Structure formats: C-alpha cells, structure tokens
C-alpha cells in the first residue's frame, strides 16, 4: 500500500476562541466560515461547496439541536445537505473523517467540515452537567462522577502505576499556556507559572483548576476537496494522508486499563498505517489536552514514548515549541480553549496553518507532516488524522 492523498485542505477558518458575549453558535460559526471563504478567493462557496459535516456536542447549551442545516443556512450554503455529528468532544474530528469519506465516495468534490460550541453563557455548574452527558448515565453520572473526575481517575492510576507526578501534569499546562500566549485567537494568551498551576484550587484531585481546559465559545472549519482539483483553488494545499477512528466502552470503569485510551491507540495505528508514517516522521502534533493528564497519556498512546514515560517527555521539554516534536503549538484545549464541538477541526486548523507556514509567532519551521488527535468523552471515541504539506 502506497501513501495516498485522501483529500486536500484548500482553506480553513477559526473564530476567536473565548467568551464571545452576545453571540450564539450560528453567529460564531459565520466567523470561521467567513475566514475560510476569504482565504480562498478562487472558491465560490455557494456554487462549489456541496455538503457540510458539522461537529456539535450539546443541544442543551442553547436548547438547540438540528445544528447542521442552521449552520448551512447561516454560512449561505442552503440547500446543501448538512449533517450534525456528535461524538462528544471528538465531534468535529469525526466530522472531518466523514468529510473525507464523503469525498472518497465520489459523491462530492468539495465539502466543508467544521464544528461549533457556545458554552460561556451558562454557569460552570450547568456546563459541568451538560458535559457529563458524554459519560455513562447509569453508573458514572448517577454516582456523581464529573468529567474532571473521570480524568482524575486516570491520573491517579497513572501516578500509582508509573510514578507520574502532579508537577509533570502542571508542566503540560505551563507549556500550553506559553504557546497560547503566541496565538492571537487563543482564549487565554498569558503565560502561567508552575507554582500557579500547583497552587490553583482542586477541582477533582489530583486535577486542579489549571489542569483543566477552558470553557470557551468558538467555531472552526476546513474546506476539503478531491486532491485532483486542489490546485485549482490554492498553490499550497495540505493533504490528509491518514485517518483513524475507534470506539471503547462508554464507562471508564469498564476498561482493563485506566492509564491508556485503547480507542486512541487503535485510531493512531490505523492512521499511521494508512499514511505510511511513524511517530518519528511527525513534525508537529495537536493532541486532546482536555486535562493535563490527557496530554501525557496521548504521548504514550500515539507512540511518542513508551507507556508510562509521558511525564519524562514533558520533563525533557521534548514537546515544547522549540523541542524535538512540538505538541499543541496552538495552546491546546488548555490555553486556546475548548468549545467542545469545534475542537477537532480547530486542531486541524492549527496543523494546516503550520504546514503552510502561516502560524506566525508560533511557526515550527519546515513542518511537513502533522498529526491531530481528538478524543470524545473519557475515550469512548477517538480519531486521528495525519496531514502532509502538498
């Protein structure tokens, strides 16, 4: 099997992430769509874009489901088919995968994929409640286990089994806030210190406030084409050369191991195999750091290091912006923000910017191959994509 360009990215858009007061999902999505349209003057969106695949996690946030057609309408793309995909926090990563399938199917030549979430108008307690819907109702929600709680259970197990420390987790936050400070669209553009993370209030021990990603509003999108026509629209397409997805039990407790996400490992394996690359070939990675422990486990599950050695990677600055393999140059979910439905394609947006050399102050020079890793819930869904500069 030889490496194949599955689809090409010809443009992309990202709204500001953060507290976007007075704006609802559909309005925020237009911000992202507008950027994608403007960056690709050769594209006539209304005529050319044939379908939309939208990640959107929660209809409770705005008492609004059926998001697909709403966003198609607001982006000026009616009557194109528009589909909402919900795989918890992996919703738009999976939407990206659906867009790839849609083009490979031959039914479409050009599609838009993206995602959106509006969260900051609700109380933190409501947000906590709505997010739990991505976990198991009868055994997890009913016992009062929050999402920070689920990742805290992974963290405790990881600490116990491998000796991972709270300081190592805190360093993930420090690194990602450093990167976020260089990203003008990040929710928080401010460096933080190790002490600040360590002394922040406990949310779910051992996770503290600064171990948790941000509750944000935001939207993201990509425009995908059949690789044969990509050059019609841009001189510098980025190709997607690998995609993977897998599932696991909804309940964290039902799994043999709490220190690894099997769905993530399998999704990675599928994507690596399809792309014909190994972790050593990667120049840049965006991983799903919904909590700092998740980034450490992601290093291990993606094969950047052996199981249990994720903490060492962060200690050795390997994944820093100027390290061997920069991870979450965007600031990650931790500092860029985590409007859940938008996160998957926002990760792809960052990889795209980096590969076309437009990541400005956080540019990794000469980046050619990138990977994005998007996790749903406590790992019941995971999807990995591998990108290559065209």
């Amino acid at each position: 099997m030889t490496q194949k360009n599955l689809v090409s990215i010809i443009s992309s858009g990202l709204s500001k992430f953060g507290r976007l007061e007075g704006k609802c999902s559909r309005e925020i999505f237009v911000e992202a769509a507008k950027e994608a349209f403007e960056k690709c003057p050769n594209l006539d969106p209304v005529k050319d874009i044939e379908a939309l695949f939208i990640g959107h996690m929660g209809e409770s946030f705005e008492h609004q489901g059926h998001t697909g057609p709403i966003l198609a309408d607001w982006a000026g793309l009616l009557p194109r088919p528009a589909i909402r995909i919900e795989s918890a926090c992996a919703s738009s990563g999976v939407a990206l995968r659906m867009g790839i399938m849609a083009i490979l199917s031959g039914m479409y030549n050009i599609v838009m994929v993206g995602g959106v979430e509006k969260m900051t108008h609700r109380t933190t307690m409501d947000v906590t409640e709505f997010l739990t819907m991505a976990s198991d109702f009868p055994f997890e929600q009913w016992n009062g286990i929050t999402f920070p709680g689920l990742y805290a259970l992974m963290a405790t197990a990881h600490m116990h089994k491998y000796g991972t420390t709270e300081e190592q987790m805190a360093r993930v936050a420090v690194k990602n806030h450093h990167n976020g400070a260089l990203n003008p669209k990040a929710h928080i553009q401010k460096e933080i210190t190790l002490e600040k993370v360590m002394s922040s209030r406990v949310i779910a021990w051992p996770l503290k406030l600064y171990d948790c990603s941000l509750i944000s509003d935001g939207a993201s999108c990509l425009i995908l084409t059949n690789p044969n026509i990509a050059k019609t629209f841009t001189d510098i397409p980025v190709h997607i050369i690998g995609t993977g997805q897998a599932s696991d039990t909804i309940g964290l407790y039902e799994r043999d191991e709490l220190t690894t996400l099997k769905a993530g490992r399998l999704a990675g394996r599928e994507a690596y195999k399809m792309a014909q690359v190994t972790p050593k070939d990667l120049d840049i990675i965006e991983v799903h750091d919904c909590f700092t422990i998740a980034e450490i486990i992601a290093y291990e599950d993606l094969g950047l290091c052996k199981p249990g050695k994720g903490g060492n990677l962060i200690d050795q600055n390997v994944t820093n912006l100027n390290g061997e393999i920069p991870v979450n140059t965007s600031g990650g979910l931790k500092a860029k923000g985590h409007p859940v439905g938008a996160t998957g394609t926002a990760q792809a947006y960052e990889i795209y910017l980096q590969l076309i050399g437009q990541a400005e102050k956080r540019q990794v020079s000469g980046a050619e191959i990138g990977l994005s890793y998007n996790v749903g819930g406590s790992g019941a869904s995971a999807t990995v994509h591998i990108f290559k500069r065209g």
Partner: protein
Amino acid sequence: MRRYTFLRGDNNMLEDSPFTIESFYKFLGERKLMATKCCKCETLFLPPRPMCTKCLSTNFNWVKLEGKGELISYTVIHFSTEQFQSKTPYIIGIVKLNAGLNLPGIIRDMNPKQIRVGMNLLVDFDTSIPLQWPQWPRYFFKLDTLSS
C-alpha cells in the same frame, strides 16, 4: 475461594427479571449486588446486558456478587453538578470486585488522607431512594474492615 454465589430460582423476582440496568437497580433496592453470567461462554457482566459481547448469546443467569474488592483508582471531587455540589468534597473510587468486575462509585465515611490504591472496600446499599427513572437506589463503597 467462593467468589460469587448463584441464586437458584428460590426467588421469583430473579427468574423473571430481564437482563437490564433497571433490574440491576431493582436488586440493589433489595440490597443485592447482581451481575449476569453468559450461559454459553460464562463471561460475567456488570452492568447487565441483553447480549453477550463475547459470543453474542442472549441467555444469561443472574449472579449475586459478594461486593468485596480492591480500590484501583480514586479522586476527590471538589466541584460538581448541581445535583452533587452540596456533597463536595466527596470521594469517587473504581473498585475491582473479587469476581473480576469493575464498579465505580462513591466511597463513604473515609478521610481522603487515609485512602490508597489497593485498599479493600466493600459495597453497601442506600435503599432510601425509590426506583423511578432517573432515580435509583444507590450502592456505595466503605472500608472492608474485616479484609483490611
């Protein structure tokens, strides 16, 4: 070592009970921690399921578990949803029962500082909650003083 007990139909409710999550909670209301066992491949399930994920059989027996096990991970929740915020801080653990199944839940009557991975815990029941969706009787964990 006898790890779980078969109930042999001396209780009518058992034979008639569908292999559902609701039945699990109905049994809890009777202070029974019940799992299901596939008649074909003998895999134990908790939560109970109508179909065995190992062999796709739909024939099961109910099995009563002892409710003893070992803590494999825990957390202390300081910020929660509206329903649970008043109980914070509370301890959540995942317990590997002696029967080999994992169960998550609240650990009661324990100082967070005492807690350690590997400690022996025991399932107990709070049957004060009537069974009507989405309300169910509760199980919880407490220190297994005899095994510790």
